[in-house]
């Protein structure tokens, strides 16, 4: 469909037979318009009149139909426009701000970010060092920043262990976004296996933690203070990471 080049204009066998005849089948005017609408709509690129003519009954006055259609859409929110010698639907110029305004374009989460997020979800409360241990690679600060920016990860507290590392956990927005009622809804080992996500040989000591329930700190966590955050440089004002 996206290919509108002439080389794709392979006529059907019965076309050949009907060569020279006025039309192999007939469509009412409205059906011609409907077909054009559908073809232009579904195409990923502007569509030539020749492309349309090939798909319409022989003898259809495509040019005329296009102008009728263009007139029909002229007052609508979407216009049928001629772009060079091809046709495409475009948002009406006076409304284009509606589309652009929202261009906080959605970013795909990177694989690293997904991994870190998943580890935080399953293993929380978890420290950065623990995440790195599970992943086997260092986590760039940018990755955590992205997850914080998305609002899915938060600082929970500080582990009562040497160095008092900060513990990380997920947020309510995280549950909302991923359609989970509670953390315990995350599938466990058997369920991941059953869904085919874990496959092959799994070592006997392999386990998947069941995430803790609430937001309450565990006994080996201390609450986190504003001071802590600043001290740790976690609240760096500039976003010059990544």
């Amino acid at each position, binding site marked *: *469909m*996206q290919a509108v080049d002439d080389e794709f204009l392979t006529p059907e066998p019965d076309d050949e037979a009907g060569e020279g005849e006025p039309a192999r089948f007939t469509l009412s005017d409205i059906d011609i318009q409907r077909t054009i609408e*559908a073809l232009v*709509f*579904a*195409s*990923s*690129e502007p569509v030539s009149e020749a492309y349309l003519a090939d798909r319409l009954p022989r003898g259809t006055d495509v040019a005329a139909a296009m102008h009728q259609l263009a007139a029909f859409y002229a007052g609508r929110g979407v216009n049928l426009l001629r772009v060079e010698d091809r046709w*495409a*639907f475009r*948002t009406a110029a006076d409304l284009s701000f509606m*589309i652009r305004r*929202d*261009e*906080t*374009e*959605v*970013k*795909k*989460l990177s*694989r690293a970010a*997904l*991994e870190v*997020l*998943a*580890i935080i*979800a*399953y293993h929380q409360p978890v420290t950065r060092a623990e995440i790195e241990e*599970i*992943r*086997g690679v260092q986590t760039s600060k940018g990755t955590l920043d*992205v997850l914080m*920016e*998305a*609002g*899915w990860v938060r600082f929970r507290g500080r582990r009562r262990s040497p160095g008092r590392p900060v513990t990380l956990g997920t947020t309510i*927005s995280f549950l*909302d*976004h*991923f*359609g*989970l009622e509670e953390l315990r809804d*995350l*599938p466990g080992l058997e369920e*991941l296996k059953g*869904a085919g*996500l*874990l*496959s*092959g*040989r*799994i*070592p006997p000591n*392999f386990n*998947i933690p069941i995430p803790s329930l609430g937001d309450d700190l565990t006994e080996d966590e201390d609450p986190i203070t504003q001071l802590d955050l600043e001290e740790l440089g976690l609240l760096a004002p500039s976003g010059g990471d990544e």
Partner: protein
Amino acid sequence: MATDTSKSATPMEKLWQDADDRAVTDPALVIDVSGFEGPLDLLLHLARTQKVDLQRISVLALAEQYLLFIDSARKVRIELAADYLVMAAWLAFLKSKLLIPQQVRGDDGPSGEEMAAILAFRLKRLEAMREQATMLVNRNRIGRDIFVRGAPEHIPQSSQSAFDASLYDLLSAYANLRQRQAITQVTIERRKVWSLVEARQLLTDMLGEIGDWTALQDYLLQYMPAEERVTATASAFAASLELVREGKLEMRQDGAFQPIYMRQGQKRPVAVKLTEQENDSAGG
């Protein structure tokens, strides 16, 4: 009770025996089991040969056909998945129940007729789902019959997040990662051992529908390949102890070396009810 699986061939068995003999003596015949999606699927195929509504099939005849099929398959050394053998054991039990006159019926288990009804129900339900699947796949589908905007201008966010990720993305990332980290070089050759989990599943499946005191072994072992009998027995016994501990199973043995009788634990029906309620409330 209900352990009468004596080989005293009823005339019906005789009839099948003949067919059986032919199947075995004629080397040109092999059994193709690969085309089936499990024992219920096979039963559904067999039921269709009866050419009647599923609610009116002769379950007994169906059981006979199935057992014949399994026997033939085993005689020509076709390796059958455990699912098929479990179904065979269950049907053998059902058959014996159906053939035994009603008078020995206790209160603590479904009658052969009830078990037959359950089987017919399951077949009917599976067939219904098959039909729905066909209807679904033949609907006007996006990308085949219906098309979306070919040149979208933006993707509006349904959720308010600026980041896009689905639960599936998250879980597969996690599973992949954990698996990657868990790679071990040790490869243990797979021996045919019935794992505890398998045995557990098997017992729960069968007891779930029998519910009466049964010497399960008699039915089960009959359909196990000879080389698997020991492991199957061991695992089933271990699994049964576990199930007893959980109250899902009751066991009885009248004396040393006597058959071990099992039945579903009496706590189970409560759990089933709970599940149903949950199902209803969530479905509405």
